């Protein structure tokens, strides 16, 4: 298994193991031709020109009028410009040289690891650098998405039009959700997983480091595309993040940016998931059987299968609405024989599993933190892993519960309701197993643990409101209202975002080698916890009483409660500043954390903080389960020349 690691990271087609100085002589002399930001400056416009030229040429050859047309050019340019950017940055250099028979750049590991801050701004093949790139980038998009929420909450504080017209309001709502889902929650887990998974399973890196670098760089492309799309002539994407046909095919041009941004984010997601799967299957350290893997690895293994199987469906749905618009096809245009509800079936066939893509990695993080911070083994380890797989399977059979009032085939309602309600069973198993793990433990109430306990409490509320929605009759009343807004935020904020914060605080010492400020961490938790509940709990009420979601204006009856929610949401937004200050200050000035501040058993804590460039100086030999706290003499792994301990419980 380690053989593969060795082969890939020490990859050397061409010139062999040259080291650093006297860099390869051929074409790499000038800043303009070396992979990097200078080259980006000319490859990006070049590929824009290629895109425009291609469309114009075809239109000219086919005698289509006008030859120069905005929509097809925009569509094609949104493919070619990012490719140009990646070419400039060097994302394809190795493969194009290799495929073209040219000498490939010597693999001298200079694309591995980070010595200065500049190394975070280039193609880097080190999973630890990529993990940090992911987490920092996604937090930036989290801040932007959160800022949008502050803006439209200001608008919603009073009925009537205050600051934004309906178009701008819809754009803010659409991009708030799109940024939070596609550019924050999903990739933030990919980032944490990227950093932690190879370390946890005892591998030197991911299975495909160059693919890993590429999948990161697709992410800023998708994010910038969404944000630039807001400023296009005619207005940004304003059909909501669900982008339902046929409305979205008749939106201003910004909608094309949305459709294409989802493709880039989706491609990034699929590539990372494939990488995780191959890494977890083939690169586990000797002795790391599946039943000895930490639950975070189990969680990402399951999530990656969901991503690989489901993400092509949202790609399809976005392509089809785009084709309806640009190429005048009729996938979802009823006037041309299209099937309008078909869009929703395809969209939710991804987007419901996506809810689990946004939750399962968080479940993994909570399992790590709850076990370590209560100094006890995970209660029912195998059932915990199996319940992840049960969620994976059931997760594919519940998509249509988003469509109980959509007008789909009537008979489908009851079977989908049954599978939806059944998901409560494996989810319940996880909740109760965490509670049993906590029971009789030695609870350390530090910041990661606070987030974990907060998550359990909030996710139970989100899960229960989900059972209300699973019941078709209640869903008929609650669907498309603020009840949905409340539910989705209890699940994706009280659920996913709490676990992301939990993971960031938990692994911060490992990633940076420094300790965050505990007091500020706890302050951040309490401000967020209180602000979150004050903001979102009243929304259940608003929805059931008659306030639809996605409205810029509402009846005066709801004015008081909306004003309250807006004020609470500003408090919630402000709590993020505490987090930012803590992270930035602690990264620069925090005290040294030590290798294993939590006294955890899993492998990532057995190496230095931050870990050495290839993770392990000696290959670990895994000899037991990952959570054997309290078992006398138990070890998860031994290193090098140590003699294995006697027989160990698993």
């Amino acid at each position: 298994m380690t053989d593969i690691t060795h082969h890939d990271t020490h990859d050397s087609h061409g010139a062999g193991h040259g080291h650093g100085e006297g860099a390869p002589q051929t074409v790499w002399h000038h800043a303009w031709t070396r992979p990097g930001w200078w080259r980006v400056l000319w490859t990006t416009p070049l590929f824009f020109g290629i895109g425009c030229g291609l469309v114009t040429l075809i239109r000219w050859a086919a005698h289509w009028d006008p030859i120069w047309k905005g929509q097809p050019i925009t569509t094609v340019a949104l493919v070619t410009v990012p490719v140009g950017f990646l070419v400039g940055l060097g994302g394809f250099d190795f493969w194009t040289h290799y495929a073209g028979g040219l000498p490939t750049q010597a693999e001298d590991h200079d694309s591995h690891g980070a010595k200065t801050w500049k190394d975070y701004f280039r193609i880097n093949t080190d999973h630890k650098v990529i993990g940090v790139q992911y987490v920092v980038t996604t937090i930036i998009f989290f801040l932007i998405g959160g800022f949008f929420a502050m803006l439209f909450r200001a608008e919603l504080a009073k009925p009537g039009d205050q600051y934004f017209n309906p178009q701008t309001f819809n754009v803010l709502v659409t991009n708030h959700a799109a940024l939070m889902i596609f550019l924050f929650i999903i990739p933030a887990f990919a980032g944490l997983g990227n950093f932690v998974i190879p370390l946890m399973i005892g591998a030197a890196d991911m299975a495909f480091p160059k693919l890993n670098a590429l999948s990161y760089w697709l992410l800023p492309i998708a994010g910038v595309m969404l944000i630039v799309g807001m400023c296009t002539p005619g207005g940004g994407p304003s059909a909501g993040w669900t982008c339902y046909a046929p409305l979205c095919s008749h939106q201003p041009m910004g909608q094309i940016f949305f459709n294409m941004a989802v493709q880039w984010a989706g491609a990034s997601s699929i590539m990372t998931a494939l990488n995780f799967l191959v890494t977890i299957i083939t690169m586990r350290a000797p002795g790391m059987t599946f039943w000895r893997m930490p639950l975070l690895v189990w969680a990402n293994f399951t999530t990656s299968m969901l991503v690989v199987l489901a993400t092509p469906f949202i790609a399809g749905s976005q392509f089809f609405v785009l084709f309806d618009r640009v190429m005048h096809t009729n996938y979802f245009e009823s006037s041309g024989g299209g099937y309008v509800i078909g869009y929703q079936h395809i969209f939710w066939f991804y987007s419901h599993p996506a809810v689990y893509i946004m939750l399962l990695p968080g479940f993994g993080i909570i399992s790590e933190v709850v076990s370590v911070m209560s100094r006890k083994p995970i209660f029912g380890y195998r059932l915990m892993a199996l319940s992840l797989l049960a969620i994976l399977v059931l997760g594919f059979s519940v998509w249509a519960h988003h469509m109980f009032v959509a007008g789909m085939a009537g008979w489908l309602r009851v079977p989908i309701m049954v599978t939806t309600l059944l998901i409560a069973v494996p989810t319940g198993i996880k909740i109760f197993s965490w509670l049993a793990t906590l029971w009789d433990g030695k609870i350390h109430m530090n910041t990661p643990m606070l987030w974990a306990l907060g998550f359990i409490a909030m996710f139970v509320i989100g899960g229960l409101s989900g059972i209300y929605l699973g019941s078709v009759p209640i869903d008929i009343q609650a669907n498309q209202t603020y009840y949905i807004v409340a539910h989705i935020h209890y699940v994706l904020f009280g659920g996913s975002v709490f676990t992301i914060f939990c993971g960031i605080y938990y692994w911060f010492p490992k990633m940076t080698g420094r300790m965050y400020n505990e007091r500020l961490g706890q302050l951040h938790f309490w401000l967020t916890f209180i602000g979150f509940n004050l903001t979102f709990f009243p929304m259940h009420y608003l929805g059931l009483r008659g306030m639809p979601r996605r409205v810029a204006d509402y009846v005066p009856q709801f004015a008081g409660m909306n004003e309250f929610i807006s004020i609470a949401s500003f408090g919630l937004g402000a709590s993020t500043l505490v987090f930012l200050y803590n992270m930035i200050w602690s990264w620069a000035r925090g005290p040294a954390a030590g290798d294993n501040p939590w006294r955890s058993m899993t492998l990532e804590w057995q190496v230095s903080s931050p870990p050495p460039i290839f993770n392990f100086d000696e290959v670990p030999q895994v000899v037991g389960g990952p959570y054997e706290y309290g078992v006398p003499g138990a070890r998860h792994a031994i290193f090098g020349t140590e003699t294995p301990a006697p027989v160990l419980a698993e």
Partner: protein
Amino acid sequence: MRRGAILQLVLLALIAAAITTAVAVVIPWMPEQASKEAQRINFTFWFMTIIAIFVFSIVAAVLVYVVLHFRVKPGDLSDGPPIHGHTGLEIAWTIVPFVLVTAVAVVSAVVLSKNSNAGPNPVKITVIGQQFAWTFKYPNGQTYPILRMPEGEKVQLKIESLDVLHSFWVPQMMQKQDAVPGLPTELTITPTKLGTFPVICVELCGLGHSTMRSEAVVMSATDYNSWLQAKPAAAAGGGSGLAVFKANGCAACHTLTAAKATGTVGPDLDKLSADAAKAGQPLNDFIKTSIIDPEAYIAPGYQGGIMPATFKSSITGPALDQLVQYLASSTK
């Protein structure tokens, strides 16, 4: 587990249950129920709420107990007991939730089947959604911008859309159904209370979405029947220009002082004369063209492609002439 621990846990769970029950009962979560369907949905809601209180109280009690009793003092580096699991407990918390959700599923399925049953002879009304207005077509063939239903009778709504997705909802009736272009859908409502209730579009349908509202008026069966026979002349197609203006949702996007309309999505209709002058067309021609072919002239400062192109087929004949006359006479 010590007996004291169980006692404390039960006590904590009871406190949590008392608090959540108070929250559930004191706050009026559901609107008044103005239909038989709403009464059944309300029952399902409370059935589910009892289960939710039960589950939440257990989790809350354990969390609070754990934090109160098992917190370590700073510097305590000991480990907890190495308990790896308990088969009996694991089976219990697989089966109990299974039974609970099965109960929810059975109750929901029964309620759903009752609520979707329109019976042998329902009152049939067609609901037509378009950007950004509802119109209602009655058995006598007339259309009208307000939904009127007889109390105590089953009403079967056939829901259609002329452009994009909309969703028909009356919160007090607790029934909701999307309007899908090209695919008529159905919804059953049995009103039980006289009065006026809001009809709301709950599917984002474009810029005027939040203004796409109408009213559902529940009348006694006799009033309804006499209204149905007496009212044919007042339907949207044959009414005044103002009625056509209102029935087609123009007010959602346009300002027109005469109609008390204050929409700001599209051009201000009080300034129609000025716009017609800019476009270089006679006023009446300009208004007519702008209704049936909105892309023909785009007023400065506005975007094309936003006003629905469906009015060409939905406002025709005398109704169109009346609307044009009305607008021409109302503009300043």
